[in-house]
């Protein structure tokens, strides 16, 4: 730690950081547009110019200036305020100011800084510079060159993070614009991060474009279930009048230990599956039934069964897994976590994307649930009752499965209307991961807890609550947490009520 002065007042800040980060960490904002901690300092926007008393030079870009012991930083002088105002004026003279139709409105650095640092009327009385609009950059990124302030964050992202370098700034002077090379659109699996990185509305996502005003969105902390990396995310959702609560987008949530500032496009767009093709009513052999009738039938089916096998989804959180384990013990049933189809060999990269698309395979391991194909098929052959919870049996051998299930009663608990739901004797709807609270362990052993984000008009119980209705012993959260404690091992040390937002490394 070092001591320096900001506007004459002494503050203690971390050493080895630039002024924006060091002073920002103690709550003093230095406005900046081009600087981003993941992309380094470029120094092109000039919004972070600060005065250094007795300094040489006396005016420096804070992003490029390391915090130093005893430094006297001036932020509130008339000179600095004037510079901030002047830079904002220059940023805005050629900006279209089309906020009413701009997706960024409400989370736009230009809007925020205008209110905070400028607030003057326009003096622009000559023709503005005209540039390209709604340019398809590929990967679902749509670019507006007129809104662009040429901070080059997107360019630096493609050069430094994905190392694919699709973007560049062509031309000089006020004709400069961000562009792709002819015939070489964005082509990387993280491209949509440039939409988040863009401080203005120049980079928009064709998926989100014009769908929702951001100030209506409720932003809940969540964990991406797209793969076993479990990137920290924001779940941005909203219930329009007379409609259901739906998710509009996932955005990466900064987590130094897991995903940094970014997430992959596939995970980002996986929100759509939470809105679509949902199982909302119980089914009996493909036909709608009331929940009372369906539950009664399911209980009957379980009572008659001699040997039951429960197949669990590797996406289910620890809390639900342990409740289902207790239910299985009550039934004398076997549990399997067979989910080989969730692994796409060779799909992962050396950054965030993993081969394993399951959110909580490590959780299955911790609870000692067998995941082998041999055990699964072996027990399925012997079973006369099969309960499938959340597992979509993707890429499983359909013929082999059908043969094993020929004379088996099938009970399916599912959040989505899968084929297995239609074929089930009884299918019961359950909540999906954006609608319940839970904890998952990622591929690197980080345990993350998340709360319920979405509240559907007709809320479904989660798998733990549903098996409790079917006679499972664990009902309350306290009972479930006690059961998790009993599992022991790395989970023994976890206080599930106090898991930090950035997760907990299990040891």
């Amino acid at each position, binding site marked *: 730690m070092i001591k320096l002065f900001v506007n004459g007042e002494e503050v203690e800040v971390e050493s080895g950081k630039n002024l924006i980060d060091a002073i920002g960490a103690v709550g003093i904002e230095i406005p900046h547009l081009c600087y981003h901690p993941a992309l380094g300092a470029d120094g092109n926007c*000039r919004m972070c110019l600060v005065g250094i008393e007795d300094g040489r030079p006396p*005016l420096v870009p804070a992003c490029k200036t390391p915090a130093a012991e005893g430094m006297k930083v001036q932020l509130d002088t008339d000179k600095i305020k004037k510079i901030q105002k*002047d*830079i904002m004026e220059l940023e805005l003279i050629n900006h279209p100011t089309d906020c009413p139709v701009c997706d960024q409105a409400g989370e736009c650095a230009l809007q925020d800084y205008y209110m905070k640092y400028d607030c003057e009327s326009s003096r622009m009385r000559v023709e503005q510079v005209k540039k390209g609009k709604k340019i398809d950059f590929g990967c679902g990124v749509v670019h507006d060159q007129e809104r662009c302030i040429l901070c080059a964050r997107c360019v630096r992202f493609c050069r430094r993070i994905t190392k694919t370098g699709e973007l560049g700034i062509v031309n*000089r*002077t006020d004709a400069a614009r961000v562009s792709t090379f002819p015939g070489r659109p964005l082509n990387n699996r993280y491209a949509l991060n440039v939409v988040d990185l863009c401080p203005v509305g120049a980079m928009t996502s064709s998926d989100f474009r014009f769908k929702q005003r951001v100030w209506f969105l409720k932003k809940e902390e969540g964990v991406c279930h797209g793969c076993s990396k479990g990137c920290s995310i924001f779940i941005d959702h909203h219930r329009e009048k007379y409609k259901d609560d739906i998710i509009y987008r996932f955005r990466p949530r900064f987590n130094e230990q897991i995903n940094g500032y970014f997430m992959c496009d596939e995970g980002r767009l996986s929100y759509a599956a939470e809105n679509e093709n949902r199982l909302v009513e119980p089914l009996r052999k493909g036909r709608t039934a009331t929940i009372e009738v369906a539950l009664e039938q399911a209980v009957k089916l379980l009572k008659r069964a001699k040997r039951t096998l429960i197949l669990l989804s590797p996406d289910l959180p620890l809390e639900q897994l342990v409740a289902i384990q207790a239910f299985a013990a009550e039934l004398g049933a076997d549990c399997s976590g067979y989910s080989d189809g969730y692994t796409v060999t060779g799909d992962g990269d050396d950054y965030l994307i993993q081969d394993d698309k399951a959110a909580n395979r490590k959780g299955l391991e911790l609870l000692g649930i067998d995941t082998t194909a041999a055990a699964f098929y072996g027990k399925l052959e012997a079973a006369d009752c099969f309960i499938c919870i959340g597992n979509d049996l993707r890429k499983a051998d359909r013929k082999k499965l059908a043969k094993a299930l020929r004379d088996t009663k099938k009970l399916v608990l599912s959040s989505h209307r899968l084929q297995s739901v239609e074929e089930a004797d009884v299918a019961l709807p359950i909540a999906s991961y954006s609608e319940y609270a839970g904890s998952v362990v990622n591929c690197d052993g980080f345990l993350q807890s998340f709360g319920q984000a979405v509240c559907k008009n007709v809320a479904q119980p989660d798998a733990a609550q549903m098996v409790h209705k079917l006679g499972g012993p664990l009902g309350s959260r306290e009972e479930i947490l006690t059961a998790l404690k009993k599992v022991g091992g790395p989970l023994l040390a976890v206080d599930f009520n106090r898991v930090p937002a950035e997760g907990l490394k299990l040891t």
Partner: protein
Amino acid sequence: MDAKTEVKNQEVKILSAKFDIENANTLEVAKQHGAYATLDKLFAMEPGDVIEEVKKSGLRGRGGAGFPAGVKWSFLPKDSDKPVYLAVNSDESEPATFKDRYILVRDPHMLIEGIIICCYAINCHDAYIYIRGEYTSQVKILQRAIDEAYEAGYLGEKAAGPDFRIDVTVHRGAGAYICGEETALLESIEGKKGQPRSKPPFPAVVGLYDSPTIINNVQSIASLPFIIEQGAEAYASYGTEKSCGTHLFGISGHVAKPGMYELPLGLPLLEVLNDVAGGVWKGRKLKGVIPGGSSTPVLTAEEAKTVTLDYESMAEHGTMFGSGGIVVLDDSVDIVALVKNLIDFYHHESCGQCTPCREGLGWMLKIVKKILAGEGSSEDVDLLLELCDNIEMKTVCVLSAACTMPVRSYLNKFRHEFDAYVDKGAARKAAEIQE
């Protein structure tokens, strides 16, 4: 001896010694006239002594900034394990400047000899000559001279002794003014878009390929053979106490005898214009003088009477010595049109990297065009002046200042000409309404 004959006779032949000799750009002729004669003396000296000699000579950077060359060299880190590079700035893109071109075309071996001296002094084995892309015929002459120097063994594996390699590479620009800015020049050599870097770090510490780098102007380097051959004192005997030596002055514009003149620093500007360059042409009156390239603030005819051609006097008169490219403006010059041309150039050449320059110069250009078209108001003229302040020194490099400094000088010294456009436009509009 009266003042006139004094100034006239001051023309010297140090840098320009071989300018008028036929084929002096070939090694054969150049050697006949003393090229590479200093090398024996040089290699007998310690590199540190060479730096001291250059410091003593008072040679200042001839690219325009006038920073002492020897002092710049001594900024090189002593304990670096990285190679040291020399980049010779031959971009010469400042409007009204054409001195380096004379050296490249008429005496390239003087430049190569200077490079050898500099490389020896700073322990550099790789020198780059960054030459502006428009110098298409000039680059051929330069390259031929370099080839000759390699063949004769002045460059190459054993250039400065058995273990001292010197390689010189010519790197052509692609027509961007900004690549004359030293860090943009380095970016360009590295194969990147020519955009200035933030300083610090300075190139002497982190320069080309992240290594310590010295960037000197062609004329600075070309001055070295004389300093080594004749000694620092001989060089410093020319010029004034703080502005030592001679300079190539490219005098252009409305004079009777435009051209390239080598003069010691410190001569009175007006007398040089009248006695050396033949005075204002066509018997017209002097309106003003651009003292050292388009980016230097203008001097009025009145100011031109007292200024002398050296760094100190120029600064005292609120302008800069610059590149020695003197432009004479007669009384027919329309200052508003001149300012439009000026902003047009710097707007066109802005690299577009940082906000104030990228957006601001375009705005200024449109405002001055509006004034020129008779559509401007007094507020527009005020705004133009205010924008100069808002942009200047808020940028990564000094390109914006190269525009705003002279523009401010024209606005302050010739405001009445801008007002006249405003008034004429207002009167025309009033007449139109009456009709």
